[in-house]
């Protein structure tokens, strides 16, 4: 019964041996169900069944997932413990007006002007600012120094990261980290990490981080960070 032609002949016979009739109640149930099932509009059926639409839907799902990840990263970026993310360089050049001193400024861009950064670091070359602020609890501003006069060929001096609302927890996390050195005279507490050339300053429940953009930078010394911190802390 199991030769190539045999199996086909046997299956032909087997499948067609006995016609079966569907019970009336099955069709009665169908009639009942379609009475409660609205037909879908043409566009929805075509959209769901079209292979091209399947591709479009997949692309849309992927795009939505990427957007969610990006948005989630921006909102939930970790702020405590070694290895916390550094802000990305941004694309919003800001004017260099002097912000008015206040308690709990809106964002990192209010903490220091470009001129103040240049003076604190005793630089003769100009300094600009790139701001990353989505109006959330965490914002940052990068201070690049244009290189050879070309805006795009710049070297980043440092980053100011400003965290509102949950600064105490973040600060305590850094304080208990390996290699932390306490710095006095800045806010309600300040921590310096020589290995990361990064300074954390706490005031109220607000935390400012002064750090290099791309990993430890020996030019960002404790003295330079303290000079920056001394200005920043008056506006936190």
């Amino acid at each position: 019964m199991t030769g190539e032609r045999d199996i086909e002949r046997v299956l032909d016979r087997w499948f067609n041996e006995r016609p079966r009739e569907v019970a009336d109640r099955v069709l009665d149930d169908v009639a009942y169900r379609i009475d409660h099932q609205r037909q879908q509009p043409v566009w929805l059926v075509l959209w769901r069944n079209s292979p091209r639409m399947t591709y479009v839907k997949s692309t849309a799902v992927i795009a939505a997932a990427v957007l969610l990840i990006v948005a989630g990263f921006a909102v939930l970026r970790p702020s405590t413990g070694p290895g916390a993310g550094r802000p990305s360089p941004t694309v919003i050049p800001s004017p260099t007006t002097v912000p008015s001193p206040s308690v709990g400024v809106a964002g990192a861009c209010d903490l220091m002007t470009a001129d103040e950064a240049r003076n604190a670091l005793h630089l003769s070359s100009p300094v600009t600012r790139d701001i990353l602020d989505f109006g959330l609890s965490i914002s940052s501003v990068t201070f690049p120094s244009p290189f050879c006069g070309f805006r795009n060929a710049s070297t980043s001096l440092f980053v100011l990261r400003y965290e509102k609302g949950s600064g105490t927890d973040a600060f305590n996390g850094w304080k208990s980290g390996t290699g932390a050195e306490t710095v006095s005279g800045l806010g309600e507490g300040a921590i310096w990490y020589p290995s990361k050339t990064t300074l954390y300053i706490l005031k109220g429940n607000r935390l400012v981080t002064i750090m290099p953009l791309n990993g430890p930078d020996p030019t960002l010394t404790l003295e330079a960070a303290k000079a920056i911190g001394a200005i920043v802390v008056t506006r936190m």
Partner: protein
Amino acid sequence: MDHDLVAAARRGDQGAFMDLVRPRSNRLYGIALQILRDVDRAEDALQDALVLAWRDLPGLREPDRFDASLRRLLVNVCIREASRERRRATNLRVLPVDGPATPDDLLTVTDRDQLERGFRRLPADQRAILVMHHFLGYAPAEIAETLGIPPGTARSRLHNAHRAMRAALEADARLTLVGGRSA
């Protein structure tokens, strides 16, 4: 006539839809029963497929394709249902291994029993392909269209399904032989 019924059903006429499916229901039920090998599941699959067909009927651009689209829908519902059944690895209600409606000297009761067991061992898509080919008389090109796969793939899957069925029958025969000797 069917063309008019399809047009009316597309506009939401439930009576027209039932008039369309009633004469086709036994054949459709046969497809579901052959693939699923279970009366209850076949009835459920047929109902689900018909309700889906009703729901999506406005999207049927060519009324002449009503039969093909209905069968395609049903086969896919059955494949999905059969896959679930395999995952659960249970058979709630086995079809009786009954004799043919007319006297038949080709298949014995033992043959039918072996065929039943062998067929149940096959994956859902292979079952569907065999049913389409041997029960509906579909050529590989029609199987390809129904499953949305290239014709070459349909041909090779049909060949593989035959081979799998043959292997299942041979395995079953060996088991029967061993069981008979040990008994």
